[in-house]
């Protein structure tokens, strides 16, 4: 079967053909009909990856010494005050840079699910509540949080002074003499190196990306083998499901926040304020793009923070996550309350409208998906995964740093 022939069949014929193809298997070239609007929507989910542009607020962005320093720090348990936790303790490379747990465990149990760390350079806000406006600011949070690494600038400066390799790398990244830097400046410097490393965690082309390219190339081009159930799921994603209204663009996210009816109690008498708490943090923290630690002399990157205002709707809103590599990062939602992608689809299919304000998330209505539709949607989501573009630098043995002088 080729693309041209399927484009010509009518809806009945399509339904008939789809019905006899079991388990979503497809031969190379099997493509469901996508109309112009659908093709435009599919096109909007690429190209991938976007161009890398250095973070203007982080002088170490794209700096090779900083990337190496960040990599070493990422796996270094001495970042924690008692030497028991590294970033990789929770963000394990083998499990999509998550821990696979419902909610994270630091020095004690934490209320939120550990998010994956891929493709972060293009994020707008960081953390489930968006309490950080840059990747380097977000990287400070777990280092100093009492329930996580419980450290501070002093111990981080000592670590970077006693470890010769780290000290060598740090000095290569800094224009200022190490001894003249304050504890806080060193903490920020370490966080910027961690950010530089995390910026390199970019995923490659997914089965969806390959299908997208082939589809847009037109009927005269051979298409990649892309399962028919995933194609049906894609139609739902951009059609009946309207998933793409929030999960749009190459990253499959609008980068903002929403209330999708997930409870946000975190124990007796406590709630996770979500975006509301994130905004309160952004308005008070020293570590934001409006603060003294941003390297963006133009302060253009701070514009997004300057006019933020607390709104009623922000209470209990959480970040709309990217769906790239979503299949690798179960469980789901800010509190890890949904164990599988099937559970996520079921949540949207049966969403409890009573938990949503009637004038809030107007686009959320129960999708009432059939069993096959749910299965197709999951099949599509599973095609959004791909390995990192570069993997060797994550785990390789580190060469010894050679001082500049």
């Amino acid at each position, binding site marked *: 079967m080729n693309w041209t022939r399927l484009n010509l069949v009518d809806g009945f014929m399509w339904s008939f053909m789809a019905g006899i193809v079991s388990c979503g298997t497809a031969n190379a070239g099997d493509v469901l009909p996508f109309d112009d609007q659908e093709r435009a929507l599919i096109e909007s989910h690429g190209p991938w990856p976007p161009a890398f542009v250095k973070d203007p607020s982080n002088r170490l962005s794209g700096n090779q010494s900083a990337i190496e320093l960040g990599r070493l720090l990422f796996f270094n348990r001495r970042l924690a005050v008692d030497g028991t936790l590294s970033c990789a303790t929770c963000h394990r490379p083998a499990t999509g840079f998550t821990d696979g747990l419902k909610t994270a465990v630091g020095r004690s149990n934490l209320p939120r699910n550990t998010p994956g760390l891929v493709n972060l350079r293009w994020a707008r806000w960081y953390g489930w509540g968006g*309490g950080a406006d840059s990747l380097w600011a977000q990287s400070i949070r777990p280092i100093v*949080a009492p329930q996580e690494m419980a450290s501070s600038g002093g111990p981080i400066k000592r670590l970077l002074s006693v470890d010769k390799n780290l000290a060598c790398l740090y000095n290569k990244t800094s224009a200022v003499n190490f001894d003249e830097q304050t504890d806080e400046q060193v903490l920020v410097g370490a966080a910027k190196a961690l950010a530089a490393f995390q910026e390199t965690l970019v995923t490659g082309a997914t089965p969806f990306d390959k299908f997208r390219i082939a589809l847009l190339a037109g009927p005269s081009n051979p298409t990649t083998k892309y399962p028919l159930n995933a194609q049906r799921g894609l139609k739902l994603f951009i059609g009946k499901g309207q998933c793409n209204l929030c999960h749009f663009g190459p990253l499959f996210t609008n980068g903002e926040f929403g209330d999708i009816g997930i409870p*946000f*109690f975190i124990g007796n008498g*406590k709630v996770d*304020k979500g975006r509301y708490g994130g905004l309160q943090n952004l308005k008070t923290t020293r570590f934001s793009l409006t603060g003294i630690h941003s390297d963006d002399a133009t302060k253009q990157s701070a514009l997004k923070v300057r006019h933020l205002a607390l709104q009623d709707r922000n209470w209990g809103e959480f970040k709309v996550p990217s769906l790239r590599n979503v299949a690798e990062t179960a469980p789901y939602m800010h509190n890890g309350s949904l164990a599988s992608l099937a559970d996520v689809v079921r949540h949207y299919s049966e969403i409890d409208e*009573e938990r949503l304000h009637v004038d809030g998330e107007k686009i959320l209505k129960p999708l009432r998906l059939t069993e096959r539709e749910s299965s197709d949607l999951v099949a599509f989501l599973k095609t959004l995964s791909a390995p990192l573009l570069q993997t060797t630098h994550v785990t390789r043995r580190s060469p010894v740093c050679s001082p500049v002088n």
Partner: protein
Amino acid sequence: MKIWMATLIAGFLAVPSLAADRVLIDGHVHYSHDAWEMLPPKAAIKVLREAGLKKVFVSSSSDEGTQMLYRQAPDIIVPVLRPYRKRGELSTWFRDETVDDMIADRLSKNTYAGIGEFHIFGADTDLPVVRNIVKLANTHKVFLHAHSDSDAVDRIFAQDPEARVLWAHSGFVAPQAIAEMLAKHKNLWSDLAFRSEQSDDGKVPEPWRKVFTDFPDRFVIGTDTYTPERWYYLVDHANWSRQWLNDLPNELADKIAFKNAETLMNWALNK
């Protein structure tokens, strides 16, 4: 712990009332069954007191939640009767002819300042169930807390020009449109629940300042605890409200903060 470390993690933590100086009455609180399961009456009242609220207009699905809170703290709870026996009746209640009997029965047995918050829009307002609710409000001298569009508010006043209506969320219309409705209906009060535009980082924008100034006796603040978690928003919301109220002349701020709600409440309760 250094100050910047404390502020970094503050986003996770509930903060106590920061500005208990200005008295507030919250005109829009619900305490439905899922709220009382997560937050028993004693704990709920503790939250209200932490927020520094003088009084709170409470309604719930079912009414049992309101009654539990009222029994726990009659000094702070102002009961309002919702026509919903349970969640999920928001878009069906106005065709359910058993609702009127339920409302009449409860009004005769318990103390209430109002009927609501109910959701009604457009021509549905003229359905028999809603007409009876408007009549019952008149008979028992209680206000109507209506989550409605302007058309529905007009229809309520067409049915009973002497009705008193607390307009939930002020219909989610712009300040100028609220002003037009307030000018048209002398017994209309505007609740500001789930509205944020009246504060721009603590400053009241000019269109809002104008409508507040033009109708100083008609606005009421509110939170809308439509999910149980939002009970913990009461504290933050109270502090946020005090912040923008402080940007208004003191006398006007006090009217919006509590005096207008008190006037409406006293009209209903001091019969």
